[in-house]
C-alpha cells in the first residue's frame, strides 16, 4: 500500500509541476493554451533520449527537457503575439494536433507509437535515485524550487507587468511595457517548466509514447488549473489532487460492476468537472468572484 501511495504521490507531484507551469500561462499571462501536453512531451522525449543515449542523470534530463521545451515554445509564442482569446485557443489546438502527428511520425526521435522503451533507472550525480521514495523526494524538491521561483517572479516587476498585460494589453503598452518580450518570456518559462515535468515523467514511467501527450492530456491539465483556481499558487496543486486522485479513488468503489467500471468512472469524473465549474467558477482556491 505504501508503495502505491508513493507512486501516486510521485505522479501527483509531476502533474503538480505541469499544472503550475500552465498556470504561468493561463493565470498570470492570460495565455489560454490547450497545447501544454506538447511541451510536456518534448521534455519527456528529450529526457528519455538523454538517458538512453548518454547518461541517466535526472537533473541533467530535467535541464535538457526544460531547454528543449523553452526553445520550441516559440511555436506557441508566435500565435500568442498575434491573436488572443478564442483565436489563440484554436491556434494552440492546431499546434497540439500537428505535434501529435509529428510525435507519432518522427520514429527516430520518439519511437512513434511504439514509444521509447527501457529508460534506465534515474541517477543523481552518480547515485541511484530510482527507488520510489528517493525519486519522490527529488520530484518534490523540483516542485518546491519551481514554485518558489514562480512566486518570486510573479511578486516582482516581471509578474506585475505580466498581469498588467493580462488585464489590459493596451494600457500596459501605454505604460511602456514591452508586451512582446514579456509574453514571449512568460511562454518560455511556462513551457520550460512543462519540459522539466516531462523529463521526470519519462523516468517515472520508464516508457514514453505519444499517447501521453495528446489533446486529452492537455485538456486534463487545463482542467486541473481551472478547477483548482488560476493565478494562485495552491490552486493548480489542488486541481491536480482532485482530478488525479478522483479516478484513483473511484477505482476503490466496490459497487461498480467490473465491465462498467470505466464508463461509470468517466461519468462521475465529467459530472464533477461540470458541477465544480457551475458552483465554484473561480476554482477551489479562487475566492467567490
Amino acid at each position: 500500500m505504501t508503495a502505491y501511495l508513493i507512486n501516486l504521490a510521485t505522479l501527483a507531484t509531476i502533474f503538480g509541476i505541469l499544472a503550475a507551469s500552465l498556470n504561468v500561462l493561463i493565470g498570470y499571462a492570460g495565455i489560454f493554451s490547450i497545447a501544454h501536453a506538447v511541451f510536456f512531451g518534448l521534455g519527456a522525449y528529450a529526457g528519455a533520449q538523454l538517458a538512453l543515449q548518454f547518461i541517466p542523470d535526472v537533473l541533467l534530463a530535467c535541464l535538457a527537457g526544460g531547454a528543449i521545451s523553452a526553445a520550441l515554445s516559440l511555436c506557441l509564442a508566435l500565435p500568442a503575439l498575434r491573436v488572443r482569446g478564442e483565436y489563440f485557443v484554436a491556434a494552440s489546438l492546431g499546434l497540439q494536433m500537428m505535434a501529435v502527428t509529428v510525435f507519432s511520425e518522427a520514429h527516430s526521435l520518439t519511437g512513434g507509437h511504439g514509444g521509447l522503451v527501457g529508460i534506465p533507472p534515474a541517477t543523481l550525480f552518480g547515485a541511484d535515485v530510482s527507488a520510489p521514495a528517493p525519486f519522490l523526494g527529488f520530484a518534490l524538491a523540483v516542485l518546491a524550487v519551481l514554485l518558489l521561483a514562480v512566486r518570486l517572479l510573479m511578486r516582482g516587476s516581471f509578474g506585475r507587468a505580466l498581469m498588467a498585460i493580462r488585464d489590459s494589453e493596451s494600457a500596459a503598452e501605454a505604460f511602456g511595457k514591452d508586451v512582446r518580450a514579456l509574453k514571449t518570456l512568460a511562454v518560455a518559462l511556462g513551457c520550460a517548466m512543462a519540459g522539466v515535468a516531462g523529463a521526470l515523467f519519462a523516468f517515472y514511467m520508464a516508457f514514453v509514447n505519444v499517447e501521453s501527450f495528446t489533446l486529452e492530456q492537455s485538456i486534463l491539465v487545463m482542467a486541473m488549473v481551472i478547477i483548482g483556481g488560476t493565478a494562485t499558487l495552491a490552486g493548480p496543486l489542488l486541481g491536480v489532487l482532485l482530478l488525479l486522485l478522483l479516478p484513483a479513488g473511484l477505482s476503490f468503489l466496490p459497487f461498480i460492476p467490473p465491465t462498467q467500471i470505466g464508463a461509470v468512472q468517466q461519468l462521475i469524473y465529467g459530472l464533477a468537472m461540470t458541477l465544480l465549474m457551475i458552483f465554484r467558477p473561480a476554482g477551489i482556491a479562487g475566492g467567490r468572484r
Partner: protein
Amino acid sequence: MLFLQLLVSGIQTGAIYALTAAGFALIFGATRVFHVAHGATFALAGYTFLALSQAGFPWFLGAGAALVVAVAFGLFMDFFVYRPIQRHEGSFFTVFVAAFGMSIVVQSLIEIGFGRGFAVVASPLTRAHEVLPGLYLADIFWVAIGVALVMFGAVTLFLERTRLGIGLRALSENPELLRAFGLSSRRLSMVAFGLGSALAVPGAVLTAVTSGLQPAISAQVMLVSLAAAVVGGIGSLRGAALAGLLLGVVENLVVSVLDTQWSAAAGFVVLFAFILFKPSGLFGQAVAR
C-alpha cells in the same frame, strides 16, 4: 482521376463538417459561448437516430426524434450549465471546462446505453457506383449536398428575413440596442442554441449511415467544428460553412501528395496557418490584438 475522386469525397465530408460548424458558429456568434459540447449534441442526435432505426422506425421519424433530442440538449446546456456560470461571470475557460465535462458525461452515458463498439445504420444509399472510369460516387453524396444546401438556405432566410433572426445577428454586435427594441437576449440565446443544435442533426444522421458512430465521436466533431468556425472567422455563419467544406476537402486532397498519416492533422495545419497569417479568418472582422 484520383484527384477528382478525392475532391468528391472531400466535398461529401465537407458538407457534414459545414453544417456542424455553422451550428457552432451560430451559437458562438449570438451568445459568445464557446460551446464545446456541440460534439455531444452531434453524438446524441446520431445515437437517437440509430436507436429508432434499429427499433424499426422509418428514417424520418428517427431523424425527427434526433432533432428533438439535439435541440433539447442544446437548451439544457444553455439553461443549466452556461447561464449559471455566466451569472457568476465565470471566465471563458470556466465555460470550456464545464462544457467539456458534459461531453465526457454524454460519452459515458452512450457507452453504458449502447455499448462501446462501432454502430452503423445500413442504407443502400452509401454504396458507391462507378460513374466514370475510376470515379466512384454513392447516392448519399447527392443527399448530403442537397441537405446541406437546403438547411443552409433555410437558416440564411431565417436570419435575414425574420425579426428573431435579425435580432439574433444583432445580439453579438450590440446587446444594448436589442433591449431597446424590446427583444430579450435570453430568449434570443435560446433560439440560438436551439437552431445551432438543430444544425448538427443532418450531419449526425448522415454520419450514422456513412462512416458510422462510436461513443468517442463527439471529440472529433467538436474539434472540426471549432477549427472551421475559427478559419471561417468567428461568428460568421457563411465563413464557418465554407471553412468546414474547405477542411473536408483539404483532409481528403492532402492524401494525394503527403503520407496518409497527415490526413487528420491537415485541417489543423490549415487552421494554424490561418491564425498566423490571416487571423480574421475568411469572413471575420479584424480582431484586436
